[in-house]
């Protein structure tokens, strides 16, 4: 037990003998990102290829390398963050998670069969159990990442219960679905509050002061537009159906018009996602408090939008390249692809292999683009637009907390709910 961590004692009442009287305005430290895009690109490209070669097992090393790069190039004032996690830990966490999930999988399978005996297709709701378990894993994964993050020789760490968090998250998800997304800002606030009030830097306790109402005021209009668009399509469909437009002549025209309108709507709504993400990110950052330390963000929506736009543009190029590659393969191996239709098995195997390889290469390209432009791009944009206010308080923070196990990351990986 670390006796320096005393929850009853207000943190930072400064019993430091030489500490000056608290300044009315906190000292500010600009956050900066010093990484080069070229370095990151090389890392992600090589790592991604290794991941393909090792049928995915390399991901633990890739993820660790990515985090090390992002962390070490993020500095608060003059002090760079440090990521102390290792790929070996992640691998072990994943293997333990597999060992844990194997019996769960079997039980789930048997449970599904028993449920089916009682009521046909009753096993479907059991999927929800795994989904709640995903929230549990996500919380534990965050705890792992936090305890592997150090700044100025102290680590971040987390208290709280992953089960309690999973319960809350599931409850808020339900509300969000029932209210067609209206409850989302309050969900985000409640979950962020739980995560942050269980987060510590040394013996400095964090909290979250952002409110759902504030996020709603900033981003509610996007939700409104999306809902209105969907409602308009639904109303149009209903009217067209009632007035019999879907029968008789001209039916194709009407259906075509609706498909076109739907596509247009989706095309208009997609750009809202990065804009919303920027809004939410800034709201999250501005709500963070570590004791007397706060964050100020000037993150611009158009900066984040630019990251996504670049990713979209380059992805289009990657997709086209894949198309050209496939076309070339089909031309060069013409006889094999022709025999595909005739049902010749050996020809099919070769063609299938070619299709699979091109498919994986294109996916790999998309992955690299996403990591370079979205993951790294948004990370760098957030860093460049954030200022830490009141850093002088950090001088008195004492070490506390221990490194958490990597099982959470392993579970999150196995359940596919992992993050950067």
């Amino acid at each position, binding site marked *: 037990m670390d006796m320096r961590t005393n929850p009853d004692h207000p943190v930072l009442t400064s019993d430091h003998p030489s500490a000056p009287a608290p300044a009315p305005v906190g000292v500010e430290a600009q956050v900066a990102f010093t990484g080069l895009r070229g370095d990151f690109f090389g890392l992600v490209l090589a790592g991604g290829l290794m991941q393909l070669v090792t*049928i995915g097992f390399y991901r633990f090393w890739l993820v660790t390398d990515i985090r090390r790069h992002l*962390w*070490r190039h993020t500095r608060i004032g003059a002090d*760079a963050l440090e990521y102390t996690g290792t790929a070996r830990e992640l691998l072990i966490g994943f293997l333990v998670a597999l060992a844990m999930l194997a019996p769960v999988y079997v039980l789930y399978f048997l449970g599904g069969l028993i449920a089916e005996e009682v009521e046909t297709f009753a096993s479907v709701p059991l999927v929800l159990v795994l989904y709640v378990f995903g929230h549990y894993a996500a919380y534990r994964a965050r705890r792992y990442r936090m305890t592997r993050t150090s700044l*100025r020789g*102290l680590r971040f760490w987390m208290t709280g219960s992953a089960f309690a968090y999973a319960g809350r998250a599931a409850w808020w998800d339900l509300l969000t679905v029932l209210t067609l997304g209206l409850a989302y800002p309050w969900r985000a606030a409640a979950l962020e509050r739980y995560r942050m009030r269980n987060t510590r830097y040394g013996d400095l306790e964090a909290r979250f002061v952002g409110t759902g109402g504030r996020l709603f005021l900033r981003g509610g209009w996007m939700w409104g537009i999306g809902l209105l668009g969907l409602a308009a399509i639904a109303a149009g469909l209903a009217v067209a159906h009632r007035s019999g437009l879907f029968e008789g002549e001209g039916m194709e025209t009407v259906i075509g018009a609706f498909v076109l309108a739907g596509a247009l709507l989706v095309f208009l709504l997609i750009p809202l996602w990065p804009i919303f993400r920027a809004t939410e990110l800034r709201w999250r950052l501005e709500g963070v408090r570590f004791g007397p330390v706060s964050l100020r963000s000037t993150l611009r929506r158009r900066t984040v939008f630019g990251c996504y736009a670049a990713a979209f543009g380059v992805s289009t190029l990657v997709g086209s390249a894949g198309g050209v590659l496939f076309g070339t393969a089909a031309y060069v191996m013409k006889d094999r692809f022709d025999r595909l239709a005739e*049902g010749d098995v050996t020809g099919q195997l070769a063609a299938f292999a070619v299709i699979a390889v091109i498919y994986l290469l294109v*996916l790999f390209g998309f992955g690299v683009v996403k990591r370079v432009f979205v993951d790294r791009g948004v990370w760098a944009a957030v860093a460049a637009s954030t200022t830490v206010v009141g850093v002088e308080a950090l*001088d008195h923070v004492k070490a506390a907390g221990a490194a958490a196990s990597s099982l959470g990351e392993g579970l999150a990986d196995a359940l596919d709910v992992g993050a950067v």
Partner: protein
Amino acid sequence: MSEPRPTGGPAVYWDGETARRRGVDLQLDAATLVILEDGAAVARWPFADLRRRDGGPDATRIGSVSAPDLARIEVADPALAAAIVGKALHFDAAAAGVRRFRTKVVVGSLAVAVSLVLTTLFLVPLVAERLVPFIPATWEERLGGVADKQVKALFGGEVCEAPAGKAALDRLAQQLVGAAAVDQPVRIAVLRTDTKNAVALPGGRIYLLDGLLQAARSPDEIAGVLAHEIGHVTGRDGLKSLIQAGGTSWLLGLLFGDVTGSSAVVFAARLMVDGSHSREAERAADRESARIMTALGRPAAPMAAFLLRVTGENAGKGVSLLLSHPLSEERLQSLKALDRGTSGPPLLDDDQWKALRGICRG
């Protein structure tokens, strides 16, 4: 070296106890790095314990395995950093270890891939084959109950029971089961649906769908189909395919599940593997069908001709690797080879055949 190596210089020190950034001076002794604050030594780190840690691009960050876990020294002066690195023999030991381990991972994961593929192709079917005899009939019966509900939900679920038709169906079933070597009860029923198919479920339930019955032109065609399904019951194929599908999905998911978005490849691969398993089972069921029909003195080929008529010409229209049934032309040929012609009376007379076809019309 033209320039003399520095024996000391300024650095930043975090002691791992508090977050205070301390400006210190380093002094390079013979075996230890001495950390001096205001002229007084605050810590001594042996060179042998020094390790490189992740820092920003413009400084060398140093940790020590004998100091608090997160205590760090950061040296901005490259010459001083080089002098320290020169004395610390294990400075990049972790990095070298990581590289060696990486190579092992690449080799190991390729081995895992090969092993998983071989397991899926050869071991899983073998396990399913050997496991099935140990699964009690009561379990299979319960599984069949589950599948039964799903099939009924999919096809509307109404069992046709016109009395005359039922009598004809029972007569046909009795002859077929009598000629087969089935060790569990077989229950055959007709479901009212336009779909042209027939299914055998675990536990001996066989459903003939009315759509297929209406497409048939002679009792031999339907008898052959039912004999084929009885072949599936004899082989306990429903149970086998359940075990195989579960096994392959688990293994292949394990193998590919993690390369982002590769689920489509997994799906296709699984379809091909499952497909090849079930094509084998179909051929076995066809052989059993031919055996039963021959034992009853009836031709085996009409069933295949019938299926060919129903499904149309298969070849050239689909990708045969993805089909769960062998191509109908191929089946027709192998069944023709097994056909011993007609030596016994018809299984149903004209009235019974008419009654059977009207089982859903009564």
